[in-house]
């Protein structure tokens, strides 16, 4: 530990700025952790005007990881893919996103383990929205260690499953992603962290945006 008031030079030259005091849905905040994000589903307080925004939340993180020069991978466990022109409109360089198309959750778990282990990626998104996540606790614990040591954000997109986590207690952050529109036609991306092991309390974050062409 350096003396109080002294910062290491490595910290000054690091690509990642230190996480701010206020939690946010950002790559810097979540890097090195395993996160699970679910659609609004039957979340308390959600009205009919709320829609799922898991894809938008994931794409937001890909754009941020790319802006820091970090490669990103998208693993689809039998789920349909995001519409690429919408990702490009969010500032994503599609050439820099590796897409792994698999048919089942077990294969996706193997691929996730390999990609996180190799240390070549800054962000690995695993789309489990159409299948039941099948990652045993042992593998998930190993993934958590690898994510921390290789500075990889592993983001699982899961289907709405009520109040419980689809992946168990080893995830570092569990959040709900939803979108809401106002009278002026603007859309808000709202993230509610139900569990955050790093912060120790729940938090929420929102940012204004717009809908896809034709909807805003």
């Amino acid at each position, binding site marked *: 530990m350096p003396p109080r008031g002294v910062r290491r030079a490595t910290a000054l030259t690091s690509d990642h700025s230190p996480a701010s005091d206020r939690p946010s849905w950002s790559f810097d905040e979540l890097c090195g952790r395993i996160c699970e994000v679910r659609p609004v589903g039957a979340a308390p307080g959600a009205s009919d005007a709320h829609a799922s925004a898991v894809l938008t939340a994931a794409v937001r993180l890909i754009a941020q990881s790319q802006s820091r020069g970090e*490669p990103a991978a998208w693993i689809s466990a039998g789920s349909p893919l995001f519409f690429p022109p919408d990702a490009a409109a*969010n500032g994503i360089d599609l050439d820099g*996103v590796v897409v792994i198309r*698999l048919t089942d959750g077990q294969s996706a778990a193997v691929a996730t383990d*390999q*990609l996180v282990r190799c*240390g070549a990626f800054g962000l690995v998104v695993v789309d489990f929205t159409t299948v039941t996540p099948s990652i045993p606790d042992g593998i998930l614990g190993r993934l958590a260690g690898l994510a921390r040591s290789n500075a990889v954000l592993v983001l699982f997109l899961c289907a709405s499953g009520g109040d419980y986590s689809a992946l168990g207690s080893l995830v570092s952050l569990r959040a709900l992603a939803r979108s809401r529109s106002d009278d002026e036609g603007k859309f808000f991306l709202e993230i509610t962290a139900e569990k955050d092991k790093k912060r120790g309390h729940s938090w929420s974050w929102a940012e204004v945006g717009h809908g896809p062409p034709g909807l805003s």
Partner: protein
Amino acid sequence: MVHPACLDVVRLPLQIVLNRNPEWKERPVAVVSEDAPLGTVLFINRVAEQAGVQRGLRYAAALSICPELHGSVVGDTEIQNAIDSLVSLLQRFTPHVEECAFDPGALWLDAHGLDALYGSVSEWALAVRAAVRGQGYFSRICVGYSRFGSYAGAKRAVRGFQSSADERRWVRGAPISLLPLPPEVEQRLQQLGTTTVGEFCALPREGIRSRFGMQTDAVYRLATEPEVLPVQGADAPAVLRAQMVPDSPLSSTTTLLSAIEGLLLDLLSQTVSAAQHMRRIELELDCENGSCLREALQPATPSRDAAVWLRLLRLRFESLHTPASVQRITLHAEAATVKQPQSELFSTAPRRDRAAAARVFALLRARFGNDVVCRMVLQSEHRPDRRFVLMPLDQLPLPARIRPAEIQLVRRILDQPVELASRRGLRPAAGPFVVSGKWWEQEAERHYYYAWRGRQILWIYHDCGTNRWFIQGGVE
């Protein structure tokens, strides 16, 4: 008489960008070293040049001169892919094609003896140019008496020379701007009063590398080459084959794998004795019921390491089921010569290991199939399901550093549209948006809508041809 010809694909990286974005052809375009303010402008088109942009400027400075400038990065892999496709095309015209080590757009061709086939060397050169044009690249070709003479001639659109002495005289008086020197080196040489190739060749050999760098040294050595070396064509990939007919048909996976491993090791020993590596193998299993099972395996990089190949083979066999006992096994291997890069004394480890990613891609392909690792490529089409295609990916590309834009909600697109049995329970959100295209194929018009279903925003369309409704995807 040796007839080295040089084909110059003019500003190849710029042409790659323009082929990728055809709508940019009338706009100012620059190829930059990186998509960041401090990136260097490497190539520019005529429109950008007329707007005042120059090579060697920082990207930010170029944008301040020409705010409409379109900048793009072209990766080494993309350039190498373009060169590989050009080399395979040119091998139809001459057996020997050599890449230029310091200029990615230049290729030397051996034109010796081809005049008998084409009538004259000029006719041959015209045929080569037309074929390259058919690939979408503008090029110039010069048939000379030396490698450097033909290179310099191609750069200045000279088709040929009357004699070797004529070539030497012309080259000595040519300006140094035709040489592929880094912009700062060219500027320094001009400040020193070195403006022609003859003056450049007269510089003392000893100081070139230490003063101007390795690329300038490579150009200098070619320009002062005392002898005319023949064109060193790359060897075409050799295909090796091994076959085995077992005494009795093999039904067990273990015995089958063991037999294939034996054939694989035999092929590997052949490649080792030929000082080559194996790039890819194709496996053919002829079964008793008449069916033939074909599988292909490819590692991250060409390899002759038995452990790498055996691991990929075993992974593929984990998910492989033969329909019947196998009565004949055939292995085809594509061999390749691998250029070993010079190791660096002070290597700086990158933050992310791209070679490790390539190895993982090879493992995933071996385990789950050759098409699981891919990337998305946008297309200029009207229909949403045709707006992109998935292309196979071998190497991890580095993402361009783009500033994240304002959030836009993202749609999910189904692989196949699902027919909407009933529109009951849907609340309209927006639409219709009419999409039609390919009228020459009598493609039906589609009316797209957004609709709420509970807490879901669906993306649906009405197919006017069949008068049916489909779900294209949803907004998530």
